[in-house]
């Protein structure tokens, strides 16, 4: 499969070699002496010649040359109509018209299609856009056209290795389809299709993923062979699954209120309880590499006072939401008769809770009304410190021993990398960037307007749209 359909166009670059070809056009739309230029383009990083003309100051490209370079197929009917087909998109052009039909929809080109010596020429940007070809212009003025077929509306990206993202899409039947996406090319392959399974929890080794079905049973999916095996028929609700660092065991929260921390051995299905302290609504479970230390949050519901003996119309109900903000806890299962320790007390919202790889500390974003949201770390000794001073952090994620934070600014966003006490700005991004995706040994990816982009050697490569 030829996946590198990247078309690098350097029409504007003076350095490209061109040879003028005088042509006399029989088509009425073209001038009697339209000059066709053989411009040097870069298709899949290889030099390719594409014919261009200039009409009324607008550069038009050969529909056939550009289309073939991008992998399209063509049909010409009646000498006036061109049908181009690429990546499941059918585009119809008419000689002398700015109208373009894209499937069932109609669009407008920036200039009318011109026929020169029975070759059709179309305005570059509009034609490429109609075919679904991504266009970018780099700092040197080069125009990049990328015709790779991409997933649309992919969600929940996570790195499964340094080159591959796992993403999900919603299926028309209400189910979900998970794909592997090549982070360099955008090439994608289906891994898992389901209408009953929970989101996949990928093991640290990237080879397998765990999920539960609607009965609570646990399955392990081999990401290479795409085959699943049931590893536990236990029918309790499991709100969260977490793999052990060595990818050999699955920890999970158990029960509809996530009250119990338990461990499942996928090899034999054995389940052992790690912590059962009758404290409900645990979440954000993180487990140390040795499987003995646990960080998690606990959310306490509000207290309601209501007298059922009074008439409903009296609305005799009162709610006290004091102390309902989530708090972080630490539990060391290696300590005999040890109890969970409450690490935080403050009445701030705590989101994006996670733990460092060595379980030395937990991190979270502290959110309070009318204040910037801080990225904080708390140790097992309850000491709290700021990891990114003075920044309005709106998302945080860990990869190996590094943290990555998305920060809101007045003009857009910034992405920071934090390691120990040091932090550095990696990128400035648009305000439409809503998420960063980091993986150990992998590049940084961002989600912008629903599309996923990967830092590909210094340029953002759009791998889904």
């Amino acid at each position, binding site marked *: 499969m030829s996946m590198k359909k990247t078309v690098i166009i350097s029409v504007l670059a003076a350095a490209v070699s061109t040879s003028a070809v005088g042509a006399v056009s029989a088509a009425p739309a073209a001038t009697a002496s339209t000059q066709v230029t053989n411009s040097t383009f870069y298709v899949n990083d290889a030099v390719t010649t594409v014919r261009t003309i200039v009409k009324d100051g607008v550069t038009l490209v050969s529909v056939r040359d550009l289309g073939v370079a991008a992998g399209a197929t063509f049909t010409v009917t009646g000498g006036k109509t061109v049908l181009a087909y690429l990546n499941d998109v059918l585009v119809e052009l008419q000689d002398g018209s700015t109208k373009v039909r894209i499937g069932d929809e109609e669009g407008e080109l920036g200039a009318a299609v011109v026929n020169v010596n029975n070759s059709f020429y179309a305005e570059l940007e509009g034609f490429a856009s109609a075919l679904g070809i991504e266009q*970018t*212009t780099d700092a040197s003025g080069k125009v990049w056209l990328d015709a790779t077929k991409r997933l649309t509306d992919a*969600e929940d990206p996570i790195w499964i290795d340094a080159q591959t993202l796992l993403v999900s899409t919603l299926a028309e039947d209400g189910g979900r389809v998970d794909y592997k996406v090549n982070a360099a090319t955008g090439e994608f392959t289906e891994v898992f299709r389901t209408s009953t399974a929970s989101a996949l929890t990928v093991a640290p080794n990237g080879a397998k993923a765990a999920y539960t079905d609607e009965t609570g049973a646990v399955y392990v999916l081999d990401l290479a062979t795409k085959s699943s095996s049931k590893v536990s028929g236990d029918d309790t*609700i499991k709100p969260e699954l977490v793999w052990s660092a060595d990818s050999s065991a699955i920890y999970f929260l158990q029960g509809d209120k996530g009250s119990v921390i338990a461990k499942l051995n996928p090899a034999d299905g054995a389940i052992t309880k790690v912590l059962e302290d009758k404290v409900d609504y645990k979440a954000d479970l993180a487990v140390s590499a040795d499987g003995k230390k646990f960080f998690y949050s606990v959310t306490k519901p509000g207290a309601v006072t*209501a007298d059922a003996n009074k008439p409903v119309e009296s609305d005799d109900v009162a709610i006290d939401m004091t102390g309902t903000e989530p708090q972080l806890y630490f539990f060391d299962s290696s300590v005999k008769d040890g109890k969970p320790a409450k690490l935080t007390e403050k009445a701030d919202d705590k989101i994006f809770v996670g733990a460092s790889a060595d379980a030395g500390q937990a991190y979270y974003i502290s959110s309070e009304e009318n204040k910037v949201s801080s990225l904080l770390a708390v140790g097992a000794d309850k000491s709290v410190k700021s990891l990114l001073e003075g*920044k309005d952090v709106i998302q945080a994620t860990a990869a190996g021993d590094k943290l990555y934070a998305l*920060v*809101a600014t007045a003009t857009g966003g910034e992405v920071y990398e934090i390691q120990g006490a040091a932090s550095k700005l990696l990128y400035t991004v648009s305000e439409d960037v809503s998420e960063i995706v980091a993986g150990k040994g992998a590049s940084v990816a961002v989600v912008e*307007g629903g599309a996923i982009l990967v830092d590909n050697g210094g340029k953002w490569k759009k791998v889904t749209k």
Partner: protein
Amino acid sequence: MKMKWFKSLAFTTLALAVMATAVPVASAASKLSGKIVINGSSALLPLTLQAAKEFKKLNPKVKISASAAGSITGPQSVRKGIADIGAVDWDASTDVPGFKKFDGQVAHKVAVIPFAAVVNKGVGVDNLTTKQLQDIFSGKVKNWKEVGGNDASIVVVNRAFGSGTRVNFQMKALDGSDFMSKGDNYKEVKSSGDMKTAVETTPNAIGYMDLVYVTSKMKALKINDVAPTEANVINGKYKVWGYGYYMTKGQPTGATKAFIEYIQSKTFQNGSLKKLKFIPISAMK
């Protein structure tokens, strides 16, 4: 939009040295802010807290607090103005047995909730008809042998008035017939958790609860020979189910509107909602 992105992001130099001077307040990702208070159904509370956790990751400036004390307190709290959303196991904008409609409130479906008649594991009965259920819960039938079981007195465990599970069970399993309300073999409990404990630990007990909360320490009964399964709810054979609703005072706006849209979204309905063993609203035709 695409071109905007290309210009603003595509070729941002990596590791750009940008001076960080002032402390800007959030303008990226989500501009939504505000506070949402939710109260009502205890059955819907796990769903609400899960949705809140996910929603706050998308909207970190929105604070959500939730509580539960039975369905009726949901629309009551909304009417009283102390909650933005009332979680309730019936459509409280309409009259139901025991409760008049709450005028001016709008009902938003958020989940499908199957309910099951449950018995202590020692009870030797697997199936009851609607008539048998009516007779047991009204106190007319007092011994399991009258419905094909052992010679043992039936202990009826009921939810207290105001429970949405009680309203649904009365409407759909008992066809609206009345419950008994007192007696030596009658218990009333205040929550799904208390019902679970009572049925698990009381010999010869019968009660009812959300199907998702049925444990291996009890037995869910067939009703009219139909097992209480998700499949039977969806295919229309099992009738004892209802929608879970979020009630709002008029049409919701701002963060409340966005939160309701999130819990109704395909992503949540087909993801976490199923994981918590509720049925997506889209599954019912």
